[in-house]
Structures are given as C-alpha cells and as structure tokens.
C-alpha cells in the first residue's frame, strides 16, 4: 500500500470555525489542518459552504455585509481573525483565483504587475512579471505580446494569467475556487498540470465540483455536507486516495458514488 499519511507541516490551522450570513449559519465548527506544500481539495454538494470556507482563508468574506465568523484560523502562529490583523495583509500572503477568469481590462503586463504596484514593490518589475508568467506556464505564449489587452487571450490563458497575477506577489497559499469550471477540457488539463507543478512551492486549496479533478490534483480531500438546516459541516478529511477509493463515512461514499439525493 502506498497510501501513507505523511505528516507535513501545517500551514493553516482551522479551529472550530463557524460562519454566519446574517442569521443563517453557513458553516458549523469546522476544524482542519491545511498542510504545507500540499494540495487540499474541498468537495461537497452545491451550497454546502465550500466557497464560504475558502473565502475565510483570506478573509474575503469580510467583503460581504452581515458576515460573522466564530473560531480561529491560525496562520504563521497568528489568528488571522484577530483584531490586530488587517485583512489586506492576509490577502497579500494568501492569493486567490476565481471560478471565471477575471483579468483586469489592462495589458497582460499590467495585470501581472498590479499586485506588485499595490503592495509597493520596489525592484525590477520586468523580472517579477516574467517569473510569474513562467511559473504559470504562460510565458511562452505571451512573451511577444505583453502589451496586448488581457481580453485578447483565450479563456484558459486568461485563467493562467489570473494565476500569474496571484503568483506575482509571492503568496504562501493559493486558493482556487472551481478554477476550471468555466474552461474547456484542454484548458482544464493545462491548469491541472500547473497545479501539480505549483504544489512544490505553494500550499494550495482548491474547491471543485469535479471529483475526478479532486482525485487527480489533490493530496488531501475534505468533504463538506450541509444538513437539514442547510448548515455545512466537515464530514471527513483524509488522503485523497483514501477518500475516493475507501471513504470512511457513509455520507462520503454516497456523495462520491452519486447516490446522494
């Protein structure tokens, strides 16, 4: 058997996290460890709170009115929800890529450089932009047209550009919310390959509806499910191979085999 529960360093530690949208409790007492330089997949039926949980990691939920958080997320020995922490700082350490490619209506170069400028980077911008584009496997395709508008790229290229944009500010963690659901199969494969390369240097958390994708790219998989009261809970978290071949919980098995109703 090669399924080993390797013990890796914990990058993000979630402790008893509950999330409320107004009076509605979207997530209840989630606790999990996100390990460093591993890909963690969040799976579960629609509306179980995967995106909500993902957005907690970089405090994007702060942007929605009436959101309330209980519990902690420990990153770098600090609770990112503690008073002293400005979410802006967190977000420059924990990058995010969204479901639909959303490049800015600027040149390819400016898209990648945006985060650097915002964060007051002093140094060689060209170098950093090139590095980020190489890392996101886009450099070869765009190096001769860095000043073209980002919208001139195909959907898959746009998504990789969004990856480059996130990578440019050298985050530790990258959050991906269904990054390929708007892409065709070929572009999807490219993004998955990219994730496989990036996990050597980054901690990655990915939300996906595609179970095969979770199986392909991730090391750990967490299964969330919302119960009667529509409130999401963590049912099971384990090595990906384990989850997809012999999950421990019946709910997981039912969901994975499509017998969940």
């Amino acid at each position: 058997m090669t399924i080993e529960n390797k013990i890796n360093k914990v990058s993000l530690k979630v402790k008893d996290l509950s999330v409320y949208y107004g009076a509605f409790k979207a997530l209840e007492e989630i606790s999990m460890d996100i390990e460093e330089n591993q890909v963690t997949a969040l799976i579960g039926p629609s509306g179980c709170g995967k995106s909500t949980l993902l957005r907690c990691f970089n405090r994007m939920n702060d942007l929605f009115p009436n959101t309330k958080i209980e519990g902690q997320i420990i990153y770098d020995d600090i609770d990112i929800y503690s008073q002293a922490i400005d979410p802006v700082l967190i977000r420059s350490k924990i990058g995010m890529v969204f479901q639909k490619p959303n490049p800015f209506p600027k040149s390819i170069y400016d898209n990648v450089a945006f985060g650097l400028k915002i964060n007051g980077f002093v140094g060689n911008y060209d170098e950093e932009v090139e590095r980020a584009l190489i890392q996101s496997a886009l450099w070869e395709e765009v190096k001769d047209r860095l000043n073209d508008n980002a919208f001139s790229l195909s959907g898959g290229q746009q998504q990789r550009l969004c990856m480059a944009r996130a990578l440019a500010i050298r985050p530790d963690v990258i959050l991906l919310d269904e990054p390929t659901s708007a892409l065709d199969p070929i572009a999807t494969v490219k993004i998955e390959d990219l994730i496989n390369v990036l996990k050597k240097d980054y901690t990655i958390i990915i939300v996906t509806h595609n179970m095969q994708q979770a199986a392909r790219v991730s090391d750990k998989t967490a299964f969330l499910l919302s119960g009667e009261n529509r409130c999401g809970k963590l049912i099971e978290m384990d090595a990906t191979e384990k989850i997809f071949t012999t999950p421990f919980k019946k709910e997981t098995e039912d969901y994975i085999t499509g017998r969940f109703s």
Partner: protein
Amino acid sequence: MPREEFDKALDELQETIEKVQKLVEKMIIDSVKSLENRDMDLSNKVIEMDDEVDKYRDDLEQKAIFLIASEQPLATDLRKIITTLRVIMELERMGDYAEGIAKINLRIGETELIKPLIDIPSMSKKSIEMMRNCMKAYKNTDVKLAESVCRVDDEVDVLKDRVINELLQIMMKDPSSSRQATYLIFIAHNLERIADRSTNIAEDTIFLATGKSRSID
C-alpha cells in the same frame, strides 16, 4: 433515487455472474459424475458448456468495461465492477478445470477405474459448497462468510493429499495403473484448484467490502 440506470446495470452484471455460476457448478458436478459413471457423452457435454461460459465471460467483460467508461464509478462502485471482472475470470477458470476433468475422463477412456471413487466425489462436493458460499458472500458482500470459505480450503487440501497418497500407494503396488493413477491425481489437483478459486473469490469479496488488497493469502 439517483443513479438508477447505473444500479440497474450493476444488477445485470450480477445476474450474468449468477448464470455463469450455475453453469460452472453444473460443469463441475457433471464432470465428476461422468468420471464416476464412465460417461463419455457427459464429458463431451461438459466440454461444450465451456464455450458458453466463455461467451458469457466476454459479454460481461465488455459490459463492465463500458460501464467504467460511461459511469465514472468511484469508491465501492468502482471496486464492484473491478471485482466483477475478477470473479467472472475465476468462474471461467473453474469451468476450465471442470473441462479439464472431463478431458482427462476422455483420456482414461472406457476402461474400469482402478479404485472406487470416494475422496474425489467428496472433494467435488466440498468445492461446490465452497463455491456456493463464496458466491453468496460475494453477492451480499458478507466478509464473515468469505473468511469461513478460506478456512474450508484447508480441508480440501487435506483431502487432496490423501487422494494423492492413496494413488501413489496404488501405483507402487501396481505399476501398470500408473497412468490412470496419474490422471486421477490430476483430477484431484483440478478439484483442489477449483477450491482455490473459490478462495480467490472470497478474497475478492473482502477487497470489495473493505478495499483491502488480497495478499493475505
């Protein structure tokens, strides 16, 4: 209930398996019967039945593979299909052994047997019982029953050794019976292998139930 079509398809696979099981069982019974009764016709019939088993096997493999292609099964579902592929293979091989017994019977020809058959029929009975149990265990994913099947296998082994020893005695006493004795030894060997196959199916059942691999041996 979701995945109805898929569940229906899985049920169909199971039905085919059961059909093949019945066929193979009959082959084993008939092959031993043909040996006991020196019934060459029956032996020939057994040999013919093997083709039918092969056809079922091919059909089922085709369907199972297409099912994997079209349904993207995961977890238990996937193990179920993979196990089906293994089980049908074991059954088919059991059929081959029965066919082998029938063929040996043809080789022995219309002569009298050198000794009355006692242990061989009881080996055959044990094997068939094992087969039934393992298939029941498989159908119901019954790990306990599967494990018990593995234990019965030892009894068959003991019987087989007894048969061989006995036949060796006969050979030593009456060298002219060597050929037939050797044939009978092979028949015992075949029956023992049939029992082994049941053990394999039992192990497949454990894999199906737990995802644990079979190398417990």
